[in-house]
């Protein structure tokens, strides 16, 4: 059976995190956040944390996102929160205004866990394309250039421009981004 769009996206997130050598932190940290710079594309953000409310028995929540910056604000473009098995919880997109579409939630009145099947179905195509793009745009390779530092943090490097790669000049300290783990 082929993977669902959500499982594909989660698989892609796992591949990026593994390429960064941070899968252990991804599955155990109280607050895991990885930012992968990959010009000219928007940085890819992958986060995970213990679930505040196990909706479908999940242990952790995973967030995958790109953010566009406009007027000093970071706007999700898009941002998906899902369970650690890849079931979507909430999608946020920016298209004149931020639209937040809940897929899975606990009803405050009844306590039942509800799923919006239509929203889930409608966003599948977008998420499948997104999963494909993360790979095609080289985010896994970009993540493999992340180097752990001695103080428990990590440093993410952008991909070197071809000219610099040819000369062998490093970009250390020039394009580093602090990543929390």
């Amino acid at each position, binding site marked *: 059976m082929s993977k669902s769009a959500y499982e594909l996206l989660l698989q892609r997130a796992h591949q990026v995190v593994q390429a960064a050598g941070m899968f252990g932190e991804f599955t155990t940290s109280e607050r895991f956040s990885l930012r992968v710079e990959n010009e000219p594309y928007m940085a890819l953000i992958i986060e995970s944390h213990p679930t505040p409310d196990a909706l479908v028995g999940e242990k952790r929540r995973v967030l995958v996102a790109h953010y566009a910056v*406009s007027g000093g604000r970071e706007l999700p473009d898009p941002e998906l929160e899902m369970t650690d098995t890849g079931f979507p919880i909430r999608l946020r997109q920016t298209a004149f*205004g931020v*639209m*937040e*579409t809940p897929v899975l939630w606990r*009803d*405050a009145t009844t306590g039942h866990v*509800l799923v*919006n099947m239509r929203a889930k179905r409608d966003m599948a195509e977008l998420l499948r394309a997104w999963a494909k793009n993360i790979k095609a745009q080289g985010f896994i390779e970009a993540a493999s250039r992340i180097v752990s530092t001695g103080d428990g943090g990590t440093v993410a490097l952008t991909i070197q421009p071809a000219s610099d790669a040819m000369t062998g000049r490093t970009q250390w300290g020039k394009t580093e981004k602090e990543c929390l783990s």
Partner: protein
Amino acid sequence: MSVNDYHLSLRIALSMGARFGYCYENAYPAFFAFPQLFEPHGQFVEGWIVFEDADQRVVLMEHGWLVSNTGHKVDPTIVLALDSGQPLYYFPGVARSWQETDALENELFPHVRFCGYGEDGMGHPGYRAAYASALHMAQSRLTPAKEFVEVRASTVSADPASGEEPAGVAAIMMVVPRQIQEGCQGHEQYHPGEPGDR
């Protein structure tokens, strides 16, 4: 921020003679006036928006808008009040297909209030969840200097001289055929492993 979506919405608003405060009256005819945009995969959405107005108020408003065949948001109402760069958040509660929307001609809007989910529509779990998310967003944007305002849909003002514009649209008739009731649903209790759970 998609300037194209904003400009498309503005063009539609101007061509339709849209008025601020009449979101359902603006969106519903636009849905059928531009079939190249909305037929067959467009959606008519009822939900909530949060924005800040020029008077430092955080506004939570019951609202209706459209989604095009290609997934672009089209809102011929809010563009009459906000610039393209102003913070604006959408929380869809009930999304209806072209066929479901077509069946609502001459019905009341927001229709979620008139298809068995209570007078305020809050019996619909998706509508209620969208409201809760919108309220959370509105509260997160409040500061001591900002006032919170909640605007619910209502019938057209009986007192036009009041100057207040309603968020909803007047009733025409109230007939709720079976297919419309079904069209209001779409949220199910989660049962893992069942067909469709992928």
